[in-house]
């Protein structure tokens, strides 16, 4: 791309701000993070260095590998849960709900919770699942159990439920967009060719909506992977995730080099994931005209 000489000052003025933004707030911090990950710690100070001890520690100490694997598992479960709940909802919005005004209203009601404080939404589940919570009260009043149980809160299931609730809009949004863009004529064509609604879904709608599935899953997975509030509020003793570990290294443990190494590892994991997702997306991209 060439830039007209006369417009160069304007061009520079227009892009200097975003450029400065990217350099100062993204590239420089990442650079600092990566370089600190090679430093050494001699309590309570850190010394510039170039050694792989921090990374070696991450892979040799089972404490860290356990948490990373657990975080991957939780994020995968949250993604699967959001997909199972979000797909039917997006499908219902795109194909069943008429007229358009009702559809917009329902779609907004999916998005509106995003305006409510994240902390508040996470805290809600503490109230619902707790020993004196809504779920226990309901079960007791229905006579299913006799005394409140403490099995609902402070475990990984509670974390998955909370995170699914919080991140499901990020799944519904891309799914709804892609489903709404599927020409209704294609569904008519399928039925015209003797194919019933179920097989039409399997053979036409599902393949054409894969882009939305990939986009929504990537977003949900990354968000859940980096979450550190749900583990604290509803996670319990075996609920620690990568983000909590990071927080500890920069706080209580005061080990910035190890924290930076962990952050770099998380960054690499996420980048690999995004790469896979965009490959999948490109492979499945379909021109819907």
């Amino acid at each position, binding site marked *: 791309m060439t830039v007209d000489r006369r417009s160069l000052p304007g061009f520079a003025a227009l892009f200097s701000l975003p450029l400065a933004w990217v350099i100062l707030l993204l590239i420089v911090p990442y650079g600092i993070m990566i370089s600190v990950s090679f430093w050494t710690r001699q309590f309570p100070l850190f010394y510039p260095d170039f050694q792989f001890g921090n990374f070696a520690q991450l892979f040799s100490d089972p404490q860290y590998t356990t948490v990373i694997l657990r975080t991957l598992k939780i994020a995968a479960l949250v993604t699967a849960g959001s997909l199972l709940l979000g797909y039917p909802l997006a499908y219902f919005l795109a194909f069943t709900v008429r007229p358009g005004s009702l559809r917009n209203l329902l779609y907004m009601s999916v998005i509106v919770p995003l305006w409510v404080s994240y902390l508040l939404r996470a805290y809600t589940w503490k109230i619902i699942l707790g020993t004196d919570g809504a779920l226990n009260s309901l079960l007791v009043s229905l006579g299913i159990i006799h005394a409140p149980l403490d099995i609902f809160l402070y475990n990984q299931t509670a974390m998955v439920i909370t995170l699914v609730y919080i991140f499901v809009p990020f799944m519904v949004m891309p799914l709804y967009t892609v489903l709404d863009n599927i*020409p209704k*004529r*294609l569904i*008519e*064509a*399928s*039925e*015209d*060719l*003797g*194919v*019933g609604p179920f*097989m039409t879904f399997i*053979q*036409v709608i599902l*393949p*054409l909506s894969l882009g939305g599935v990939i986009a929504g899953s990537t977003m949900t997975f990354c968000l859940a992977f980096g979450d550190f509030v749900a583990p604290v509020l509803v996670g319990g003793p075996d609920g620690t995730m990568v983000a909590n570990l990071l927080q500890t290294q920069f706080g209580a443990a005061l080990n910035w080099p190890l924290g930076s190494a962990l952050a770099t590892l998380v960054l690499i994991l996420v980048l690999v994931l995004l790469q896979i997702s965009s490959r999948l997306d490109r492979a499945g991209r*379909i*021109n*819907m*005209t």
Partner: protein
Amino acid sequence: MISKPIVSLEGVTKTYGNFTALHATDLSVGEGEFVTLLGPSGCGKTTTLRLVGGFERASAGRVVISGEDVTSRPPYLRPVNTVFQDYALFPHMSVSQNIAYGLSVKSNNVPRAEQAARVAEALELVGLEGMADRRPEELSGGQRQRVAMARAVVRRPRVLLLDEPLSALDVKLREGMQVELKRLHRELGITFIMVTHDQTEALALSDRIVVMNKGRIAQIGSPTELYDNPSTPYVADFIGAANLLDAAPAGPDGGFTMYRLGDTLIRSAQKPSLALASGAMLGIRPERLLVSGSEVANRLSFTIKEVLFHGDRLKLELMMRGVDKPIFAELARTVLASSQTETGSHLDLYVEPSDILVFTGGHAG
């Protein structure tokens, strides 16, 4: 007239809220016929087609296909297939996958081995051999059209529905595809029901044309019937073109009925017994105004207002004394000397009494 109806609409009505898209309509289409639903947008022609295809449910009345009441059956349980206006090819499938799509259904009972043969046969029928592995997005408009045709006929439906099949193609291609459609209809021997707003397409292809207007059938007939004997001014104007002029009855004259048009008396071939006392509307097709005529022909005097050059033909905008509307005529360029076609000059043209279309009563159409 219709040997054996394959599709019958009996009092079929379609309403959307307060709006009636199709008023109670009866229509029978015979086995192997090529019937066209013709009309401007919003006339109910597409609704009618979609009611046969099953994409719309009738608000009242019955839809019968090959003797079975299919009124409440969904599209996938009807023995018809559709060629959609925008083709509606599956973008994630190759050409052959698109065509095989309707064969792979269990209910269709086509053995796997036969499917491939049927697909190849359909590709050959539409002249797309060698394109089997292409994606729809790699095809031209005309090729997509052919894939849509192949996909619809490969299931060997009793009736093929075509929704403005040629409207997305450019003019040259459209004429070629008209010939193709005619050939396919002949070779397949099945019933075609086509929707179009293009009268030349309807005239060229159809055994019968159903002219529709405002959710009602205006007239049904063969192309020549509609052209020669339109029942209303609307049909006269829609099939071909017509100068529509208000005239006053002026009594019988021998075997003819006379009408007064401006200052001129016009002789029409209408039977005197059919004439009414009230006003009437006369229709004169532009191509039936000629430079000479028989001894009973009407001789009309015009002043030339405008001349439009159409290659081998000239379109003349003419004024007639006592008539406030311009009258259009279309003449071969060779029949007129250039001195005769100057703006403002005088021109006499003839029209035979049998070419005067007379519409009496309710002529708003």
